[in-house]
């Protein structure tokens, strides 16, 4: 079912919402009756959803909403209208192609991510695994699925009596291994990650698979992860392609071209002529070729820019740009704008490099990251495409994805240095950083700054601020944590300090 998209002002839409059902006059003509409409106010995100029940020809009448004053052609009967969470343009498809550019009264389909409910875990198991779990249950044991799966794969060479014994041993083993209550798991996790830090390299750059690419690794990267920096020092994406073009070099290179963000300054020099109040763009042929930019691309990009007049230069390639207002300030502004003007590609992707894997499939590595926009490309496999920017993942894919990103990035950083750290510690760190729903840094801005104890906060950093603030609020320190109890000289409430064991003596 197709929907129509158009642009209107916020004020118009607000009025409309108040008065639905209503009639609404627009300047377009419709061949078929659309059922839905989406309205944008900024041409990028659609924030209003309308239900349309009928289309009539426009005649002047009262109590009708007008999109504009003249040139009206048809009247839509709006059943209901409401504000919705912003829907980006990329979520609409025209035919099989994703919509790239907005045009007024465009007919398109909204595509939504398919949601599939995962079939129940137990049912999805292989019969052998189920059998193993059944066997264990028969002997009175309950096996975790992962262990049962492993055992099922090794079942072949094991004799029956050994097998039964092994089942019993596994059960006993898991019992013995479970963690002790009141264990200070946080401190253990912090030590387990901090201690190998001293053994890590400081060298910031390293080659990860592709030697042209620099990626921050080692201790600086680990610090960056726990700091939850907004932007990592070397943002980078690993873009996987759809199965059908994965091995097609030509198609892959086309995607690379689509990804790579090229601005005018990348391929041309800009010369400011103050006397004539014009800017001359001199394309550099070599750089144009390297970046696969045609002069027509350049012209197209300039067309989109507002507030300038484009004049063809005396030599064939040169383009002269004149600001419409004649002022030095404007000239300077235009120059700055021109430098950053995107000719093609995705903002933030400075460079993209395609690499052929051993299995003949291509992967694209990028310098710079823009997950949201890259995911909207048709050619890429959005299920595998990845970025090392944790905050970006959390923003685009949600906090659970962010949690997994922290885990994966930290695990990879440690593994790359050849350090073995149990994944449970990394999980705890990732969970602690994300349990509140946003990614919080380890440090005074994040977790430590939000502790419930005044004394613990004062002992960490910015001592006086916390003490003064506490006085105003009349804050109560419940003395439940570690730092505050050490400060007042009491046993801490973890481990053996968490329980009180009192000898009552014989009651005589």
């Amino acid at each position, binding site marked *: 079912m197709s929907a129509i998209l158009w642009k209107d002002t916020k004020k118009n839409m607000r009025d409309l919402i108040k008065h639905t059902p209503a009639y609404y006059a627009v300047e377009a003509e419709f061949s078929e009756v659309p059922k839905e409409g989406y309205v944008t106010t900024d041409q990028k995100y659609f924030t209003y959803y309308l239900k349309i029940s009928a289309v009539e020809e426009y005649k002047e009448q009262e109590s009708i909403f007008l999109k504009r004053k003249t040139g009206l052609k048809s009247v839509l009967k709006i059943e209901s209208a409401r504000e919705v969470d912003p829907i980006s343009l990329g979520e609409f498809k025209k035919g099989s192609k994703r919509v790239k550019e907005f045009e007024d009264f465009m007919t398109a389909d909204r595509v939504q991510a398919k949601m599939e409910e995962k079939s129940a875990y137990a049912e999805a198991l292989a019969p052998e695994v189920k059998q193993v779990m059944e066997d264990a249950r028969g002997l009175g044991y309950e096996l975790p699925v992962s*262990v049962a799966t492993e055992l099922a794969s090794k079942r072949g060479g094991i004799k029956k009596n050994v097998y039964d014994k092994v089942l019993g041993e596994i059960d006993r083993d898991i019992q013995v291994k479970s963690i002790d209550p009141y264990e200070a798991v*946080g401190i253990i996790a912090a030590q387990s990650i901090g201690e190998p830090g001293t053994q890590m390299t400081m060298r910031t750059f390293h080659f990860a698979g592709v030697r042209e690419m620099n990626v921050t690794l080692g*201790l600086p990267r680990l610090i960056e992860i726990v700091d939850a920096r907004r932007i990592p020092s070397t943002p980078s994406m690993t873009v996987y392609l759809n199965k059908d073009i994965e091995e097609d070099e030509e198609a892959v290179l086309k995607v690379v071209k689509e990804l790579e963000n090229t601005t005018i300054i990348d391929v041309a020099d800009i010369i400011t002529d103050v006397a004539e109040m014009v800017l001359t763009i001199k394309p550099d042929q070599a750089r144009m070729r390297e970046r696969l930019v045609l002069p027509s691309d350049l012209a197209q990009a300039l067309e989109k820019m507002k507030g300038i007049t484009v004049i063809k230069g005396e030599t064939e390639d040169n383009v002269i740009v004149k600001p419409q207002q004649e002022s030095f300030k404007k000239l300077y502004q235009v120059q700055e704008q021109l430098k950053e003007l995107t000719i093609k590609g995705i903002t933030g992707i400075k*460079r993209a490099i395609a690499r052929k894997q051993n299995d003949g499939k291509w992967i694209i590595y990028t310098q710079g990251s823009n997950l949201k926009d890259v995911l909207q490309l048709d050619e890429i496999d959005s299920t595998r495409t990845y970025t090392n920017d944790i905050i970006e993942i959390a923003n685009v894919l949600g906090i659970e994805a962010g949690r997994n990103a922290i885990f994966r990035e930290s695990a990879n950083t440690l593994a790359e240095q050849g350090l073995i750290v149990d994944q449970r510690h990394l999980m705890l760190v990732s969970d602690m950083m994300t349990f509140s729903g946003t990614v919080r840094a380890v440090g005074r801005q*994040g977790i430590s700054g939000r502790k419930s104890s005044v004394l613990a906060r004062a002992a960490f950093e910015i001592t006086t601020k916390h003490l003064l603030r506490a006085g105003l609020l009349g804050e109560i320190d419940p003395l*439940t944590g570690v730092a505050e109890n050490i400060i007042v000289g009491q046993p801490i409430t973890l481990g053996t300090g968490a329980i009180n064991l009192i000898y009552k003596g014989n009651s005589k």
Partner: protein
Amino acid sequence: MTGGISKRINRIQFALLSPEEIRKMSQVKVITADTYDDDGYPIERGLMDLHLGVIEPGLKCATCGGKVDECPGHFGHIELAMPVVHVGFIKEIKTFLDATCKSCGRIKLTDDEIASYRKKFDAMSLSSSDPEIIGLMSKKVTDEASQRMVCPHCGVQQVKVILDKPTTFREEGIKVTPKEIRERLERIPDDDLIFFGLNKEVARPEWMVLTVLLVPPINVRPSITLETGERSEDDLTHKLVDIIRISQRLRESRDNGSPQLIIEDLWDLLQFHVTTYFDNQTAGIPPARHRSGRALKTLVQRLKGKEGRFRSNLSGKRVNFSARTVISPEPFLSINEVGVPEKAARELTVPLTVNIFNLESVRNFVKNGPAPRDEFGKYLPGVNYIIRPDGRRIRVSAQNAEENSKRVEVGWVVERQLMEGDIVLFNRQPSLHRMSMMAHTVRILPGQTFRFNLAVCTPYNADFDGDEMNLHIVQKEEARAEARIIMKVQEQIMSPRFGGPIIGGIHDHITSLFLLTHENPLFTEEQMIHIMSYVNPEKTPVAVVKNGKRYYHGRDIFSAVLPDGLNLKFTSKLCASSKAKCEYESDPADKEVVIVNGKMIHGTIDETAIGPFSGIIIDKIFRKYGPAEAAKFIDRMTRLAVGFISQRGFSTGIKDYDIPENAVSRIKEISDEATVRINKLIETYREGMLQPAPGRSVEETLEIEILSVTGGARDESGKVASAYLGLTNPSVIMARSGARAKMLNISEVAGMVGQQSVRGGRLNRGYYGRTLPHFKVDDIGGKARGFVKSSYKSGLDPLEYFLHSIGGREGLVDTAVRTSRSGYMQRRLINAFEDLKVDETRSVQDTIGTVIQFKYGEDGVDPTRSERGETVDLDYLIFDAEQEVQ
């Protein structure tokens, strides 16, 4: 938190002090700016008034009558002539002035707004909610109120108040005096305070403008007497003197009706002194200085930072009953033991509370006096002090020992010197993980150093190049029990970081056992007995008879330290890389180490078997037989290793790196080839023919290419060299067994040192366009950029040597930077995670009960006990079960 500990602070509430409260808690109103009179006696109503506490022996506190160490000190107060603002609350005062009406004092919100906001604020309690959220909410409300220029309550036109940092407020350019500010703040009704994040129960806004200043007790600011007899006052006292002096002058000037200008100047000066009394690093005013020019350390400076009260004295404390000295190795100690020098043992004591059961034995200790020895001159524990139930300490000397032993009764405490078997804590800084502090049992040894088994070096990260370590004597029975059960070295064999052993054989242990088991050599009975004499084994190896003589296999000797019933199969480090057949083993079966029922059948013992981090045998013994058995194995294994290597002998020298003439010339060829290829690359580059790699500039591409050429050259020369250095070479044995060094280091010695680098690239800094003046400008050839063709053995030429030092320096700098950076990261991590704990249901919670994980680590398994992270080790369980069923 009830019960258990008889007294426990349940909670602490913070509040502001009101002037009334300050006067109430004050013992004396200080009016004299002087401290002591000419006789050195405290001046009455001065800053050192006897009511404020005593610091001099002999004097008694005028308030509580206590002597030094008994009197906790008491507060006094200063009545300021004019009010001044408190620097710490400047921002808050500004918000108050902005958001309330200057005439009626109400918050500038309409009644409707007040009602709707009040609902939101009432929903949470100020004293226990997240201060951050309260801050954000009140900021929103006060910002809105500040915008309004007409008071909705009384309709008075408002004037913008500007803060002239740090402490002056101006209204349309005219200064608003603290007195006026205070008057305005007084007008604000209690009910409006909540919108400013102020708890009306504990604070009033006008208290942020001071009229009375609290004078801290003398104990907080003791004066010190220098050797010259001169008295030197504390920084705080200096500051208080200034405040009183100015306050008095201000009062006089005001009362005599001095010109307004003079009064204002004095008032500003008073404000300056009070400001710097609180915080001497306030932005915008010069710090108050001591006569010597040193900036004074006032209240904020005392609390703040690493050397501040919080981090230095409250979060960390100095302790008694501790010792520190240099450490040295002692292979004949168990891993659970620590050797303590007699001298230290005589000073360190364990308190024994006398009861009816130990009365006799304790009296015996006392009778022995402070330095007893047995008939052979061996150390016996004595007693330094006995403590009577009233707390008096009596020094025990050789003379009064006999007499004192009779006086000891039930209820007394006797401080007995350290004796063998006492449990102590042993620690090496930096304490990066919990294995940095472990419990040991004491062995009293002659000498001056602490000694311990070499296997324990790894968890402490200690070596013996002058390292010092700390020893703490545990003073309470509960603590001793915890130390013994939780902290003992054998309990810490498994690292919580990766679920494997962190204690294991090192260096010579690995070399030795490698030599003992590789190719399973035969030993004569005498040799076997010599080796075994180090071990004290439970089993003896089985002999094989050859030519009528009894011989013993190396693996059988090793088996003597393995516990019965141990079944194990794994690949040794030696054969880890080889897939089908192991090039180093003559018998294909030796590719895997096989141990059945505590008897080693195949393979070679090396790092993988007994080393720290990897030690599979230690790992499995710990899991199957427990910590005590694992400790026993490590003790015996290290002793066996020491026994064997001292019997066999092991050494390496420069001759071990000799390689034949043709190999040397082959290496020369390789390095020449590399030079030629580098030059060719440079030539191509200079001609502009070098194709840049995608995404790289031509220069970068050239560097990458050259680096790969030099890297290849070093690898190749290493290969050539090591082809002549087989497993008979001691260095190769050490490298292959994992004892020390890598093959790379050997090829550096025998083959070629290779390319030196800084920041992952070739050396390029120094003189203009070159690294040293010996090269031509813009020479980017191999040698000029740090390609070292020589080997360590042949020696580096002067230029190579210099360039090599450049590369070496980077490593040193790197280490220095790294320790500080990772130290800070760890501090932040610990601080953020210290409060987390697992509860009975294995879920992870923080202090206020927020669930962080529903099941710890998703499976509830302790990483310490996990199989290197895995829940169970199925292969081992199956192998073990198979062996046991047979």
